Every structure is written in structure tokens, then in C-alpha cells.
């Protein structure tokens, strides 16, 4: 046993992990299970799961920043709500072409731009990570308050009602997504694409540099890297991904309210990622889906006690299980591997 823990300790925390193949299998398993939901458990789960999947995407956007670059953001919800309101507003317009496409085409750049500008402004001055958390908090608070105060545009606390989008393929016709199963698969496909894209990014040079930033920013600077640039890029990307998630959420849930951008939602994302595993995209995705589903289910039954329990779980994770559930599973597999080869 001591041999196993020694080699567990001596495993690198870098990006090229031996569990690459393992993560692919786990991802495939997760997506297959999700794909099986509509035919097998039609009804409420088919309706609600896309929202949790989109929360999972929001969680992934945070893990890019937190797990890889080591930068915590308490403001991802701000970008989510920018995307949501962009979609909501576009869906109320009539320009002649598919308003949902317009919504997505505006949501992503808008959220990305907000993140890029904020990031550049802070990182180019070498803002410390703890100060950055504060600014992202302020961002979330402001996002919520702007949504409330500009009630002429956003509907304030009354919110914005949004139709289900349709997929239009020009002359080839259109597919309405009012049907829950169709919407489910559409969201699932997007989630898979985003996951694959982010995985590609994080296993290449970009991901390695972000890990370098997390491990020793000064060393990286002294090797000639423009650290501020990479941080800004990571933040901008995370904003864009969160914005996309928000845009799709708006047209799925049919309703956008200011609390989508607020601090409470931002920090829920932090809790999901902490529990799921901040260093693993799949862990964050799964963490987002699972914890938010559990929260929804248990909120109907024991709302306050569940949130309390979640708070304690969060503490336990931060103190003892920094790498979250994904890390636990990895350690378990590693132990299993060694036990097998040692026999």
C-alpha cells in the first residue's frame, strides 16, 4: 500500500495524464447515458436535463480558469446572463432570419468581449488572484443590478419570456425545438462539441501554458511568456463558453431573470466545480449536471438542509479533496492499476 501511495504522490499534475484514455471512456459513458434518457425516461427529466447540461457547460468554463490556470472567478454567471439576455432580446426581434441564430451570434462575442476587456484591464497590470476574485464578484453584482435597473429592456424582476428556438436550414426547412426530446438532443450535441473543443484546447500548448501559470507564473515570465495575454485569453474563452450556455438556457427555460447573473448563481458554479473536480473538464461538467440535478430534486424536499449539507461538503472538498470527485476516481483507478500489476 505504501508503494501505491508513493507513486500516487509522485504522479505529475500536468496535462498529459495517463488517464487520458480513461477520461475518454468516462466521457463516452456519460454522453451515452444522457443520450439514453429521452427514450427511456421521457417526461420531466427529458424536459429539465438540458438546463443542467448547460449548467455543466458553465462549470466547464470555470474549470478552464480555475483548474488549469489556477484563477478563481466568482463571476461566471455574469457572462451566462449576458448570453441569456442577448438571446432573449434577439428572440423578440423580427429581422427576417432566425432570431435564435442571431442570439447565439451576439451572445458569444458579447460575453467574450466583456471578459476580454475586464481580463486585459486587470491582468495587464498584474492583478493578484485574490483581487481578481473580488472584481468578478463585483461583475456578478453589477450584472444582476443592471438587469434589474434597465427594466425597460430586460423586464427587470419580471424577467423576459423567451420562445423555444427553431433550427432553420435555409431552403432545407426548419425544425422546431418545442418538443422536449428534440431540444434535449440539440443541447446534448452542443455540449459534446463544446467539451471536445475545450479538451482539444487544454491538451495542447494552450492548456500546458495555463498549467504553467498555475504552477509558477514567475518562472513562466522569466522564460519569455506573456502571462497576461494567456490569462486574458483564458478568461475571454471562459466568458464566451458561459455566454453560449446562457443563450441556449434562455431559449430552453423560456424565461430569463436577473438572478441568472447574480452572485449566488456564480458561487453555485464554484461549488459544482469544486465537488466535480476543478482540474478535469469532464469532472466539472459532471459536477455541474449532478449537483444541480440533486439540488433541484432535494430542494423540493429539504431545501435548507440540502444547501447546508452542500456547504459542508464544499468545506470538506476544499480541505481534504482538492481534486474533487474526478480526482478521487483517478486515485482509485491508479490504486487499482497498481494493485493489479503488483499481483
Amino acid at each position, binding site marked *: 500500500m505504501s508503494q501505491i501511495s508513493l507513486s500516487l*504522490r*509522485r*504522479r*505529475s*499534475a*500536468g*496535462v*498529459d495524464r495517463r488517464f487520458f484514455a480513461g477520461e475518454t471512456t468516462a466521457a463516452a459513458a456519460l454522453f451515452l447515458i444522457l443520450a439514453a434518457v429521452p427514450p427511456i425516461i421521457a417526461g420531466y427529466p427529458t424536459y429539465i436535463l438540458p438546463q443542467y447540461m448547460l449548467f455543466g457547460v458553465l462549470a466547464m468554463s470555470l474549470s478552464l480558469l480555475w483548474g488549469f490556470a489556477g484563477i478563481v472567478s466568482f463571476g461566471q454567471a455574469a457572462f451566462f446572463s449576458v448570453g441569456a439576455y442577448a438571446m432573449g432580446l434577439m428572440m423578440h426581434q423580427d429581422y427576417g432570419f432566425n432570431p435564435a441564430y442571431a442570439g447565439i451570434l451576439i451572445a458569444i462575442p458579447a460575453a467574450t468581449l466583456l471578459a476580454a476587456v475586464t481580463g486585459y484591464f486587470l491582468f495587464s497590470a498584474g492583478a493578484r488572484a485574490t483581487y481578481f476574485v473580488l472584481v468578478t464578484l463585483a461583475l456578478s453584482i453589477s450584472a444582476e443590478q443592471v438587469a434589474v435597473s434597465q427594466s425597460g429592456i430586460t423586464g427587470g424582476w419580471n424577467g423576459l419570456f423567451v420562445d423555444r428556438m427553431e433550427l432553420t436550414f435555409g431552403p432545407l426547412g426548419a425544425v422546431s425545438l418545442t418538443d422536449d426530446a428534440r431540444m434535449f438532443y440539440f443541447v446534448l450535441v452542443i455540449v459534446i462539441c463544446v467539451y471536445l473543443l475545450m479538451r482539444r484546447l487544454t491538451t495542447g*500548448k494552450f492548456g*500546458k*501554458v495555463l*498549467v*504553467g501559470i498555475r*504552477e*509558477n507564473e*514567475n*518562472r*513562466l*515570465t*522569466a*522564460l*519569455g*511568456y*506573456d502571462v497576461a495575454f494567456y490569462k486574458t485569453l483564458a478568461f475571454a474563452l471562459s466568458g464566451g463558453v458561459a455566454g453560449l450556455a446562457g443563450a441556449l438556457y434562455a431559449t430552453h427555460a423560456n424565461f430569463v431573470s436577473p438572478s441568472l447573473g447574480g452572485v449566488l448563481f456564480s458561487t453555485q458554479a464554484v461549488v459544482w466545480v469544486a465537488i466535480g473536480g476543478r482540474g478535469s473538464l469532464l469532472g466539472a461538467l459532471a459536477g455541474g449536471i449532478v449537483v444541480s440535478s440533486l439540488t433541484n430534486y432535494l430542494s423540493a424536499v429539504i431545501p435548507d438542509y440540502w444547501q447546508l449539507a452542500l456547504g459542508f461538503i464544499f468545506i470538506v472538498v476544499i480541505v481534504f479533496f482538492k481534486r474533487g470527485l474526478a480526482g478521487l476516481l483517478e486515485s482509485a483507478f491508479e490504486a487499482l492499476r497498481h494493485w493489479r500489476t503488483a499481483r
Partner: protein
Amino acid sequence: MSALLRTEGLTKHFRGLVANDGIDFSLRSGEVRSIIGPNGAGKTTFLSMISGHLPPTSGRIWYRDREITSFSVVRRARIGIGRKFQTPTLFESLSAYENVELAVLRTESPPAKREARVNAALGTVRLAEGRDTPAQFLAHGQRQWLEIALLLASNAELLLLDEPTAGMTVEETAATAELINRLARERNLSIIIIEHDINFIRDLAARVTVLHLGRVLTEGPFEEVAADQRVREVYLGS
């Protein structure tokens, strides 16, 4: 004969303390130079001003005949100035391989070429066996070598080494001296070393610059400097 690195009147004040006082310094391409001096002489401060980590209060610096006084750390690193810090500064939870890979990644993309360069650098510092070990679990001497490997892999041409043999055994120290001499000879690298270990400095067969109270006390071949009365006083006196 133009110098690779030249400083003129390099001075650094810290709130009333004069750490470096008008240092004129020059280094030729392919030269190894040791900088010695008692604690507080201003050696690390001097190195920090060359690497760009500290802006000088006054004075100028040229690298390859280009004035770099106002260049940032990043810019200096990109033109070939690499620094090994007094405390080994590594990517602690990453393996030796991944550490060096980061040094290569900025300038080399194709994975095959990258791998070759990383392995070459690790081989040069005799760390090929420890390539998968996280930096934090390497022995102290190996960590120093790893940091040197980072500089080699990043194509640094001027290496600034701050106490590379601190914490090393006698054998490791001798090996390090041999490594540095080889790097200067075979690759024409220019190396400035801050050191305290007299045997190591002797093995280096390089000129020595002695700093005292922020100024250059004397400079010359090791034997001359070692015999210099003023140098003895500075080390043994106060």
C-alpha cells in the same frame, strides 16, 4: 572586441540603502564569469537588474550592442537572457520533462522536435532518468540542474545563475563546474554565476568579479583575486 553584455554606472537605491553603486561590467560572448562577495554586497541585485526584475535607479545596460535598460523581463527572456533564481523556481507538481517542455513550447511546436529538444536538455544535465518525477520530489541538486535545463531548452544565450551549487554535495558541485565549462566551450554560451563555494569557483577556470558594498572591488583571474589582499580583508575582516 565587442561585449555581449555591458553595463555602465548601474546603480540601485532602496529607500536609503545603496545596493549597487555605479557598476561597470562587461562580458564577452562565450565567457564564464563568477561574481563573489560577502553577503549584502549586492550580487543578486545586480543580477536582477540584468534580467529585468529590478529597474535600475540609474545606469544603462547593453546586450549585443542594443540598449536594454528599459526592456521588460519577458522581452529580455525572448532575446536570450535566462535566469536561474537563488531559490530553485520550478513548476513544482509537473515532471522534469513537463518543466523543460514549457521552456521549449514557446518557440517549438511540432511534438517530435519538441520531444527531441526536451530530451537533449535533460540529457545534458544528466536528468534523463528523472524525467517523469515531479520537480518537487527531485533531490536538491537535481532541482538546480533542472532549472539550468530550462534555460538551455529555451535557447538562452546569456545564463544568469544565482548560487547554482547551494545545497549540493561535493560530487554534484564538481559535476556542475564541469557542466558549465562544457556549455561555454561547446555551445559558446555566456554565463554569469553568483557563488560562495571557493572550490567550485576555482574549478570554473573563469574570471572573477568581486563585489563589496555595491561596488566592484576588483576583477581578474581566480588566482589573482584569491591572492588580493583587499579581497581577503573583505571576507575575513568585518
